[in-house]
């Protein structure tokens, strides 16, 4: 046990460096996912039939294929088509677009469960479609989407763990270097698991607090299928 602690102390600085990269990628991916996912959801619900078809295709492609395959297509495959990204950019982009497809589905579910009647009432007092979406539909959808969005945040933190396979020096990347340097894979990955456990635990607590703060009577929660 003592041996384990010494090992822990030896490798933790390096792992924490990687953790910082992991968190950055997760944050960036969630942001991209939101920035792309929300408009995607709006098009999916309010867009013209053609746009809806395109957007549905986009969502199905990203939700129907493994993240790791997407990562390889983006990093190794897209250069074939003249699109070349650095490792880090590829990581942000793949995770971000992947998350956008899931976030779009969560937002779509939330928007649809706000209901058509709220739109009608907003239009009846003279709001434009845009204003109705902005001031009536979205504020409610955001509250409804909180539980699924929290789950998505946790999922993305965990799914960043594949980016080391394109040699991004995240927590897993560092872990791999450390474990082969010290020939101690089991202890290394157990420490890695503990770090993820702490991150996910903290994120859960924060999200629960935020969720409480934005609670509105009548808009308590909505559980949608998550990954």
């Amino acid at each position, binding site marked *: 046990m003592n041996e384990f602690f010494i090992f822990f102390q030896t490798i933790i600085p390096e792992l924490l460096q990687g953790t910082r990269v992991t968190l950055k990628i997760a944050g960036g991916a969630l942001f991209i996912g939101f920035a792309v996912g929300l408009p995607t959801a709006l098009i999916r619900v309010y867009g013209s039939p053609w746009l809806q078809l395109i957007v549905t295709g986009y969502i*199905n*492609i990203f*939700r*129907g*294929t*493994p*993240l*790791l*395959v*997407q990562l*390889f*297509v983006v990093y*190794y*495959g*897209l*250069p*074939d*088509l*003249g699109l*070349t*990204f*650095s490792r880090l950019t590829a990581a942000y982009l793949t995770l971000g677009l992947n998350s956008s497809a899931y976030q779009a589905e969560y937002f779509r579910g939330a928007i649809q469960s706000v209901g058509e009647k709220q739109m009608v009432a907003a239009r009846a007092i003279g709001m434009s479609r845009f204003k109705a979406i902005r001031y009536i539909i979205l504020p409610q959808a955001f509250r409804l989407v909180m539980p699924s969005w929290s789950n998505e945040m*946790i999922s993305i933190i*965990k*799914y*960043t*763990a*594949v980016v080391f*396979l*394109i*040699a991004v020096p995240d927590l*897993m990347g560092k872990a791999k270097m450390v*474990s*082969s340097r010290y*020939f101690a*894979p*089991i202890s290394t*990955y*157990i420490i*890695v*698991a503990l770090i*993820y*456990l702490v991150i*996910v*635990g903290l994120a859960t607590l924060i999200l629960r607090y935020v969720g409480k703060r934005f609670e509105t009577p009548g808009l308590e929660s909505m559980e949608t*299928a998550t*990954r």
Partner: protein
Amino acid sequence: MDPRLHGDDKKPEISTFYDSIKTETPQEKSGRPGQDEASFVGASATTFHVTHQEAMSVLSRSLLTVLQYLIPGIGITVSVTLIALTIGLVIGTVMAVLRIYGGRFLSPVAAVYSIVVRAVPVVVIIFILFFVISELVDLSPFLSGAIALGFASGAYQSEIFRGAILSVPPGQMIAARAIGMSRFTAIRSIILPQAVRLAIPAWSNEFTLVLKDSTLVYVIGVPELLRRAQWVSARTLEPFLAFGTAAAFYIVFTLLASRLLGTLERRYKIIM
């Protein structure tokens, strides 16, 4: 440490679409095209004489090679998925029952398993179990991978079944006990059969998730679809075609799986 683990260190050669067309003139490729922009531009300029037909025939020849490599991987991907799902089903059911009916000692054990495993990336679990298993017994990466994936899926499935059991109306247990069933019999023949049906939608979702997560056994060198896509991309030097085809396979599988499970769901729906 298993040398296969480092398979991912050796990235396949990357090339552009035009590079790969002129297979007759092998040229030293120096890393990723982003790093030698000049040679990329040069290459594309010299290949403009390649006609459309030629390009198409080269493309279909490469596609054939890709398929030759990928198709044996389908069986592996599907078996890893099915084994993992089965293991997860057993663990998940047991853990869900323990979580709800396990009392003061077993219930927390089930809770800790579910919370810890779901907080850790599946890839990490695969690594840990792969190394732990290889210390204990001599198993192929295929089996270790499937077991690890099943161990991870068990935690997610336990949550699915827990939710389903809790949404069986409490009157069902009371009614079962009232006609003289033991607690165990009531759980087995009244509660679980209903819970299983209620769980089908969420379980379908888990099915496609495990199917997609089965790519993660790539990291311990299992020759599933993705690993084979990597091999063939190193050979044909057309990673987009290789990984894109793999992606297409997955889309077909996930669509098929959700169709199949959708039928199942409609068939076994309980009207409540």
